[in-house]
Each structure stands twice: as structure tokens, then as C-alpha cells.
């Protein structure tokens, strides 16, 4: 690995100040460190955010769940409060990577990285999340821009993510047999007033809200309503693990599983 300067700032301001076009913020490092090792990314400065106390923790207040950016997947998975408020989100965290990855990887890191097959982005979209940074608040829908691309600007740090508590929700994923990332993942969330969000991950350059599925389930929250939705394989990812056609079909299969489990 190429050498760099390591920093461990104590607050967000200091962290932001240290950043430049040649720096990277480090949270869990689950993607950053391997890509640095493989020479896919090199940085002059690595700025570790884990020393910033206020970035970690889970808070449930009424219809809002707020999770600090450096909260590890294992903490999200275990949180009793969260299990009560949004059990599907805790279950999603329990399904990320393996126990060691969950002990290190963070929600903020996952969202900032925006891997097309990551789990959390679908939760953010389905649960009308607001991503709070040191400068502003961004709606999930506009936050995820494309493959590994978000609306975060240079020096901008995610501080926390706020999720809206749904009345019912469930996340189902078809894992890639090798990496265990999502080949496709479907997050179904139903809110008061019967509005339903269906967010998909793994299928395109990044997670997205599937309008057709959301509309159909908002009208009639049943597996049969999914049958009538046409999901085209156009624009859907295709790789050695799954063709676009298979993925498109699995979106429906897994959407049904999610609805059944709601």
C-alpha cells in the first residue's frame, strides 16, 4: 500500500479542515482499505472519523430513528430500541457481510461509498431517510447519484441518518454466492396512509425507488398486485453472477417475499 498521513481528529470541524481532493475519510474501512491495498485508490491523507464521539449511536424518538454515521452494523443489528421501531433495518444490518465486517463496518461508510450492491442505500430510500452532513440535510432520493457516487461534496461529512418509522417493513436479499453482497435486494416499507416505498439495490448503478412496485403496493398491499407489475430487464445490471433478465425476475420474487414477511 502507498504511504499516507493518518489523522484522527477529535471533532467534525477539524476533520473537515484536514480534507482535500487527495484525502479520504475513514470509518469502518471495509471498502477503503482493500481498495487501497489493491492499488485501486491512493490518498495523501486518511482521516479517521471514529474518534469523533458524537458520530456514533442510535436514537429512537417517536416516528424518527436517528443513527450516527460511525455506528457499526453490529450495533444497529443488536439495538433493542431499533428492533422495536424498525425491525427490518436491524435485520438488514445483521445480514451485511460477516460478523467481523459487522463489527467494523459503519452505516455512514456504507452510504458514502454507495456500492451498487450495498444494502443500506435501499433502506435509506425506502424509509424516507434524511442524511445529515456537517453542512446540510439531504433527502435519500437525491443523495444517491450513481455508481459509487453521492451528492456529498469535498470535505462534507455524514453525521447521521434519520429514518422514518414505517408501519410495516421488510428487506429481502438474494446474496451473491461469492461476495454475499446483494445480487438484488428489495426493501418494502409501508407508512401510515398506506403509502408504500419499494427500494431496490443491486439491480442498477445504485439503489433506487421502484415507482411501479411502490404504486402497485400503495394501491393494494398484496403479493398478487406485484404479479401485475412489469419489470423490464432494460437498464438492469448483468454480470457473471446474474443476467439482467434473472435480476429483473428476482426483483418481483423478492418483493413478494418482502410483502409476505411484512
Amino acid at each position, binding site marked *: 500500500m502507498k504511504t499516507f498521513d493518518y489523522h*484522527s481528529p477529535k471533532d467534525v470541524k477539524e476533520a473537515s479542515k484536514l480534507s482535500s481532493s487527495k484525502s479520504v475519510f475513514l470509518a469502518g474501512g471495509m471498502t477503503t482499505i482493500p481498495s487501497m491495498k489493491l492499488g485501486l485508490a491512493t490518498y495523501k491523507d486518511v482521516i479517521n472519523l471514529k474518534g469523533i464521539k458524537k458520530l456514533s449511536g442510535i436514537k429512537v424518538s417517536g416516528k424518527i430513528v436517528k443513527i450516527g454515521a460511525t455506528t457499526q452494523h453490529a450495533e444497529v443489528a443488536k439495538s433493542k430500541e431499533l428492533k422495536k421501531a424498525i425491525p427490518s433495518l436491524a435485520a438488514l444490518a445483521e445480514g451485511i457481510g460477516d460478523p467481523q465486517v459487522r463489527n467494523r463496518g459503519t452505516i455512514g461508510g456504507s452510504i458514502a461509498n454507495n456500492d451498487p450492491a450495498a444494502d443500506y442505500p435501499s433502506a435509506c430510500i425506502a424509509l424516507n431517510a434524511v442524511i445529515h452532513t456537517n453542512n446540510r440535510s439531504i433527502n435519500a432520493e437525491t443523495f444517491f447519484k450513481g455508481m459509487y457516487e453521492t451528492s456529498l461534496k469535498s470535505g462534507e461529512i455524514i453525521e447521521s441518518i434519520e429514518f422514518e418509522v414505517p408501519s410495516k417493513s421488510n428487506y429481502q436479499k438474494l446474496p451473491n454466492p461469492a461476495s454475499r453482497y446483494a445480487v438484488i435486494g428489495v426493501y418494502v416499507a409501508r407508512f401510515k396512509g398506506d403509502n408504500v416505498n419499494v427500494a431496490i439495490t443491486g439491480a442498477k448503478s445504485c439503489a433506487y425507488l421502484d415507482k411501479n412496485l411502490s404504486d402497485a403496493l400503495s394501491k393494494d398491499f398484496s403479493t398478487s398486485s406485484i404479479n401485475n407489475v412489469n419489470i423490464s430487464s432494460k437498464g438492469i445490471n448483468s454480470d457473471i453472477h446474474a443476467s439482467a433478465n434473472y435480476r429483473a425476475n428476482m426483483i418481483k420474487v423478492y418483493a413478494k417475499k418482502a410483502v409476505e414477511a411484512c
Partner: protein
Amino acid sequence: MKKINVEVNGKKITKEISDHTVLSSFLRDILNLTGTHIGCDTSQCGACVVHVDGKSIKSCTAFAADIDGSKITTIEGLTKNGKMHPMQEAFKKHHGLQCGFCTPGMVMSAIDLLKNNKNPNDREIRDWLEGNICRCTGYQNIVAAVKEAASKM
């Protein structure tokens, strides 16, 4: 260079390290604790699992600088007064290892499982070990060993 203070297997250690030293390299190359192995170096195989502040992590994917102030336990730190840990004993009894290369990570991961779940069933053991690849054993005797250790711990 960075100076870090850590406790490794019960011993307090202060060392100067390069900023980009990863934990596995710190353990193997600087402390000569070569029981922690590197199988893939990209956090997929699990041969490098150690405990940091009581939790299992993949030491190839953590910067040593980031571990400053922590307590680390490696496979070398499990044996107390010449007596192996019940998990180590169980692996021996059930032939839960063959070439031995994945074994340190497997044992460290399995011990963390029992911290989280005192009496896991087969399925729970197999699911937990998702991050540890073994090419020799077909996992069956590992599962048997973890069950045995659970009954002894």
C-alpha cells in the same frame, strides 16, 4: 510515523509504526506474532481474525494506528499457563483442523460467537462462520468442535 500504545495478549506495548501499517502486519512483522495468518489480505477469508476490545475483527482490514489504546487478543494469547482454551481443545478433539492455516482465525471467530450466543445450534454456527473460509475440513468437524466448546465454556 505514529506511536501507538496497545495491550497485546495481556502485555502493554508501545511501538512506532508507519501510518499505513495494517494491524495484521503490526502483529506479524513487528511483534512476530505469526499465528495470525494472511489468506487473502482483503477481509474475505478470515484467516487473520483477532479480537480487539473483545470483538472479532479481520486484522488485515484495520490500520494499526486506528487500534491505538485497544486491547488485542491473538491466537497466541488464548493459552493460559500452558493450558489451551476450551475452543482450542475442542478443535483438537474433533479434528476441526487439517493444514492449520485458517485455524487461528476460525478459532478466534468461534470464540466471539460464543460470546454472542452461548448455545448455538448447527445453523447458527455455520451462519456465523460465513466470514471464515476453510478449504480442508468441509467445516463439519469445526461445527462439532464449536458445539463441544459451547458445552464446556
